[in-house]
């Protein structure tokens, strides 16, 4: 690949920025940043966002997005917690109920958008409120004291990394393979690029759309279970603002709001980039008042630089 083509590849571009940021941080804060503890914490903190961002990436490749994923994260953990704590349900059944409920929510979103033709933004915005309300009803003031088996899922460690990091890596690798190699997932690129053409070429667009929402909700449901297990608590506030973080990560990672573009590795790198910025601001003790402003400016700068480079290459 020529250097110019590398620059056009957002995954490469983002990787380069991440590497530069890491070097700058390691030189500036060697004792705080360049430690195994900090890196394992960084990966742990981005694991939930990344799992959700993978689902969001598939939706955005198909030209859609889901604003209810953050609420589904709270619902899934809340449902499992509620069943285990108040009804002494076995932890595996409780997890199945949490994830199963999430899948039903995803199906409802997909069906109403694809079949009833409700605008995805309106539908998922409404669902976001409904599901957050359900999560609030289930979790109340927070549910704690889960069984050891449930807590084990999110708090055990392997090679020094906490379990959610491994789940995240497994999901990312699985979906990189699926999106690259299977016809089923390749169809989403056609749908996102030109829905009409995809329909004429025999792709069952409505069905594919429903599956995309089911998949996104399934991943959000898994993320919710992992988050509850990691925290040892089901919180009604879990996943607040996660939908926007996931969309930002996915766009940073190369997806387009109009659909047809994007790679799973991009979703991971987008989430990693945001987690890194957050980590950087905390380590450098930037006050919370400034964090939002700086984060916004860095995001604009990253996307702006990417667009500027792209234009330069096209003009050559």
């Amino acid at each position, binding site marked *: 690949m020529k250097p110019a083509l590398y620059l056009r590849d957002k995954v490469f571009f983002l990787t380069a920025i991440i590497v530069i940021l890491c070097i700058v941080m390691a030189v500036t804060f060697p004792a*705080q940043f360049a*430690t195994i*503890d*900090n890196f394992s*914490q*960084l990966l*742990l*903190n981005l694991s*939930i966002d990344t799992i959700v961002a993978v689902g969001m990436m598939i939706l955005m490749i198909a030209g859609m997005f889901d604003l209810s994923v953050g609420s589904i994260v709270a619902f899934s953990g809340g449902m499992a917690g509620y069943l285990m704590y108040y009804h002494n349900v076995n932890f595996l059944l409780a997890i199945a109920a949490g994830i199963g409920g999430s899948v039903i929510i995803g199906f409802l979103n997909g069906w109403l958008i694809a079949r009833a033709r409700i605008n995805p933004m309106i539908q998922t915005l409404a669902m976001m409120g409904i599901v957050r309300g359900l999560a*609030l009803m289930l*979790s*109340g*003031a*927070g549910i*704690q*004291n889960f069984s*050891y088996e449930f*807590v*084990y899922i999110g*708090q*055990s*460690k*392997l*090679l*020094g990394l906490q379990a959610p990091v491994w789940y995240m890596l497994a999901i990312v690798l699985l979906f990189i393979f699926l999106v690259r190699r299977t016809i089923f997932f390749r169809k989403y690129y056609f749908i996102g690029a030109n829905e009409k053409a995809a329909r004429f070429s025999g792709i069952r667009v409505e069905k594919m759309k429903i599956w995309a929402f089911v998949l996104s909700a399934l991943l959000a449901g898994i993320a919710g279970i992992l*988050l509850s297990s*990691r*925290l*040892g*608590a*089901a*919180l*009604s*506030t*879990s*996943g*607040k*603002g996660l939908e926007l973080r996931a969309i930002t990560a996915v766009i940073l990672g190369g997806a387009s709001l109009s659909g047809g573009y994007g790679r799973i590795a991009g979703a991971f790198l987008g989430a990693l980039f945001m987690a890194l910025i*957050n*980590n950087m601001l*905390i*380590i450098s*003790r930037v*006050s*919370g*008042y400034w*964090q*939002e402003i700086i984060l916004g400016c860095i995001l604009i700068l990253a996307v702006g630089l990417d667009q500027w480079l792209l234009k330069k290459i096209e003009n050559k």
Partner: protein
Amino acid sequence: MIAKNIFLLLAFAACWSCEAPPRPAASSTAIKSNEKFITSDVINPNEEYVMVTTAINLPLYVNHDQAAFKKWGEKMGVRISILGPAEWDVPAQIATLEQVITGKPAGLLVNGTDPGIAQAIKKAVAAGIPTIVYDSEIPNSDRHCFIGSDWYEMGRLQGERMAKILNGKGKIACIGILGLENMEAGFRGLQDVLKKYPGMVFLGTYDDKANVETAARITADLLSANPDLAGIAGFDSNTGPGMALSVKEAGRVGKVKLTTVDFEPEHLRLVKEGVIDYLIGQKRELFTWLGAQFLFDMRHKTVALSGNDALAGVVPVPKTIITGSIEIDKTNVDIFLQNLKERK
């Protein structure tokens, strides 16, 4: 063949290094190492005390908790940092806390926003960092000390005052943030009092999501739906100004009795105007001033309770401090307003 061997080796390494979380009984608040704490009053230039909260720019936090913490830092000549998300986002507060732990600060002051932060606090304690929770208690967190308010009592006091103002009769509603442990305790305290008065009807608890506009909208709806509404009890800092706004707009000042928490300048002004009847305030400055001082004392072993507190497993600060609350109504509001003028 080589790939297969590498895979087997990695699989073996993975199984060998799999680490289960500690069983609940294994946790301890004892400070395990003697070396983790300094034995003199000399301040290390790198000695940093960190406050981790959520909704970092909430005026209530800025004007009370953070202001006292900053003053304490100036007085003691130590570095202080205040970190946390701008929104009310507990998982983001946990993520911040866990990242701060890796830097091993001299002490941690954690706003007890939700029981869900217990695991992160346990991590801090396990890492040997003196850790104090303030505002609301976090059960099962192993924290070294808790300094804060008794929210059940704050709800109970609001209920008693409401019953007194209304002579034990009338319809009452309650507005706050649903799903927060401290507020739910406050709601219970209020309702337990109301149960003692058969003439008082409890309409329900409503969520204003810590937002003035939402509190105002809910109040307006309650006033429309219940023309005979007698009173509303508020439970978060934004509820008071929100419900006062709607009661004023509806021309029902004095007819609908309002009680709420906190005593920000806006709350005090509304009491002076006669819109709000009763405020129950927290001694928030004490949370962070005393909390920071305790962290310093732990770090510097200011008070020794045994030959070697660390080895004896003694935590040389109080386990729990309930600072009590401040009751404000028309009879004493001027004193608090005067204090505000002097501060300016």
